[in-house]
């Protein structure tokens, strides 16, 4: 070991009083690059060393506010914008209900961020190759003594002077610490690459096994393999081996009472009554549905003049005398069951909409052929 470079000169003290005194003297003497090592934090040492106050509080503040923002923005994105869900009629951005999670994420991020910044950015840890490690000085400083370390980087540093200075302060076990040449761990060795390949194979193999095999073994597959009949599959239970059963005769789906008078349009005209009130709202609904479903054949004004009029059995006008005399119920029957080439519109328009369409047809009939009374009423 020839070119040993000096790292520092160190000395040990027995009590906290002595170390405070020593650090004040070191500062007075103009040393800038020095350190005090103590087994526990000693009160008043920061002032004696004239250290600037720690900025860690600002780090905690910034990390904490970042956590707050991340939590609130994430929740707003998920619950307000990406997949808005109405939960109990609450607003889509329910701030009070977001407070707990926001608080937790704030604390989590502030704690993790501050500690990581402290250890890995401020202290540059892990640092096990530091010259002080394994020295007698370090072993005493982490257990029972208080040490002063004058570093060789300081402008004023001179080995002999530093030793004399520490001796004058009353330090014991004064010694010189030399820097160690740091070993750079070789990365591209056969062993390391072998280790990497091994890790990749193990991790990918384990992932493949878990996601493609394990999840299809009991008990993980019990949700999928239940004792039930799946759709489109052969049933071993029913003699006809159909898994889907016929409905019991006379079954009526909820809200779908069958239409009456299918075979007797005249009875429909006689007995069915328009249940809707004749008002603007219903006429507007009827207009909308008429223009969507009826106008392609019957024309926008129900004159039978749509663009289909030449290449189609001509759709009749709805302003004929026959139509005007028909009751609402009779027209309802035509819309519901169809007539001639006109198919049933029961699937396209609901019952209520059918009655509204009829109201609109009545409105058109009156608007295109107004009577004297209508004009009188307008005056």
């Amino acid at each position, binding site marked *: 070991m020839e070119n040993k470079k000096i790292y520092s000169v160190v000395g040990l003290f027995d009590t906290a*009083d002595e170390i*405070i*005194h020593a650090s004040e003297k070191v500062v007075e003497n103009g040393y800038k690059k020095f*350190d*005090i*090592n*103590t*087994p*526990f*934090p*000693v009160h008043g040492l*920061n002032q004696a*060393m004239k250290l600037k106050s720690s900025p*860690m*509080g600002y780090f*905690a503040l910034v990390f904490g506010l970042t956590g707050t923002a991340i939590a609130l923005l*994430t929740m707003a994105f*998920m*619950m307000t914008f*990406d*997949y808005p*869900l109405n*939960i*109990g009629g*609450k607003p889509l951005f*329910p701030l009070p*209900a*977001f407070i*707990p*999670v926001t*608080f*937790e*994420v704030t*604390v*989590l991020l*502030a*704690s*993790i961020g*501050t*500690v990581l910044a*402290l*250890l890995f950015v*401020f202290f540059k*840890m*892990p*640092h*096990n*190759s*530091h010259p*002080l*490690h394994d020295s007698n000085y*370090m*072993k005493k*400083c*982490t*257990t*029972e003594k208080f040490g002063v370390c004058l570093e060789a980087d300081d402008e004023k540093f001179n080995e002999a002077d530093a030793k004399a200075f520490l001796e004058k302060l009353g330090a014991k076990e004064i010694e010189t610490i030399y820097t160690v040449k740091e070993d750079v761990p070789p990365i591209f060795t056969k062993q390391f690459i072998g280790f990497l390949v091994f890790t990749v194979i193990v991790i990918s193999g384990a992932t493949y096994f878990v996601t493609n095999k394990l999840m299809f073994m009991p*008990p*993980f597959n019990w*949700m999928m393999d239940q004792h039930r009949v799946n759709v489109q599959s052969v049933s071993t239970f029913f003699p006809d081996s159909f898994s889907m059963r016929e409905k019991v005769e006379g079954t009526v789906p909820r809200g779908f009472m069958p239409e009456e008078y299918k075979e007797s349009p005249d009875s429909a005209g006689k007995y069915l009554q328009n249940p809707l009130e004749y008002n603007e709202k219903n006429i507007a609904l009827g207009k909308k549905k008429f223009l969507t479903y009826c106008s392609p054949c019957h024309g926008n004004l129900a004159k039978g003049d749509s663009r289909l009029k030449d290449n189609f059995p001509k759709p009749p006008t709805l302003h004929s005398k026959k139509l005007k005399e028909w009751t609402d119920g009779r027209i309802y029957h035509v819309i519901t069951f169809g007539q001639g080439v006109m198919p049933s519109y029961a699937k396209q328009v609901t019952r209520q909409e059918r009655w509204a369409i009829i109201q609109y047809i009545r409105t058109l009939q009156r608007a295109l052929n107004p009577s004297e009374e209508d004009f009188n009423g307008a005056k």
Partner: protein
Amino acid sequence: MRDYSIEPSVVEGKPTFRQIDELIGAPLEKMPDKKFYIAISITGTMFLTGIICWGLSFYYGTGLWGNNNPVGWGFPIVNFVFWVGIGHAGTLISAILFLFRQRWRNGIARFAEGMTIFAVMTAGIFPLFHTGRPWLAHYLFPLPNDHSLWVNFTSPLLWDVFAVSTYFTVSFIFWYVGLIPDFANLRDRTKNKVKKVIYSITSLGWRASNRHWQHYELVYLILAGFATPLVLSVHTIVSFDFAVSIIPGWHTTIFPPYFVAGAVFSGFAMVQNVLIFVRKVFNYEKIITVDILEKMNKIIILTGSMVGYAYAMEFFIAWYSGNQAESFVFINRAFGDYAWAYWIMVSCNVIFPQLFWIKRIRRNIPIMFIIGVLVNVGMWFERFVITVTSLSRDFLPSSWAYYKPTLIDGGILIGSFGMFFTLLLLFTKSLPVVSIAEIKSVIDGAQPTHHHKEANNGK
């Protein structure tokens, strides 16, 4: 008259730094003795019972438990709330008492924090298995998925996921940050090469530099400042699981403070119980003094009285609100099918801790141990009473039923104690259970007297 302006030392007998190192490091250097093997075989058997019952529940599902309509929250939730509560004392000791500059907490903080971590780990298993499919538990977090559906951030059960996981993470960080200087101490004292490598890695190359101590102390203070509202928020949110629902007996605003007080109450009883053994077995009588145990008993009587007040207030509000369902539930608790559980709870939580008003009982170790055990029995029954009585008598009388736990439920409860104590026993043999750096800083004569200047001037 005693002069209260002079604070008595929290460590008895003025030990030197070296004596402290040797005393605290001793359990880590000696091979475990017979007592340790006996203890760990008992807790290990309990733990194994739990593992078997957990394994059966994992394979066959939650149908093995007594949970059924209307009591869907049986033992698993009772145990979860109980164990999370046990954890709270640790954070209170390490963080809240640190902020209040209570120097006596230095001797017990590390151990209490360890108990926090193990208790939260134990607690976390219960909701995990209560989901029914523990292997899909990652969907408790808002993960992107095929259904592009997110978790419900307005649900208290989700708040719980965030609260408990944050609590565990922050407690662990706090614990580890406190351990770093001690790892450096052990690294520099050990003669075993393997241990030296381990301690070198875990101490991250700590050099006990005052330039580091300065930032370290501030960060420790900041962490304590974060952990304090955090610990209060955790049991508040656990209580929201109940209070935000509309079941009679749960839907009350007193729940958050009532739960936090109860958690600290049971946690302190548990810490006190375990410390009585630790100080005896490892000869820590001078570090964990009877004074410290007495102070803990004072906190037990304070929180116990708060819990007693909450019981009384619940009854008062049930009557005062004029709500029929509410008053029925409370009368049913005291005189209905579960009256036995209710009166165990009241006697253990409200009556026995009041004996601590007597100083001689407060300082008598066998009696305080018995009271501590009773407090934990009482607090377990408190969670049982809250969960089961309310659910078994909900709004619909046709669905009323009597909840009976199964053998598997009992096995899991035993297993949870086994897991907690096994982890604690391993902790006592692998890490310093008292913070070496913190206890050194409160020994008489450890801190500077600030008289040296005058002394120098006199020279």
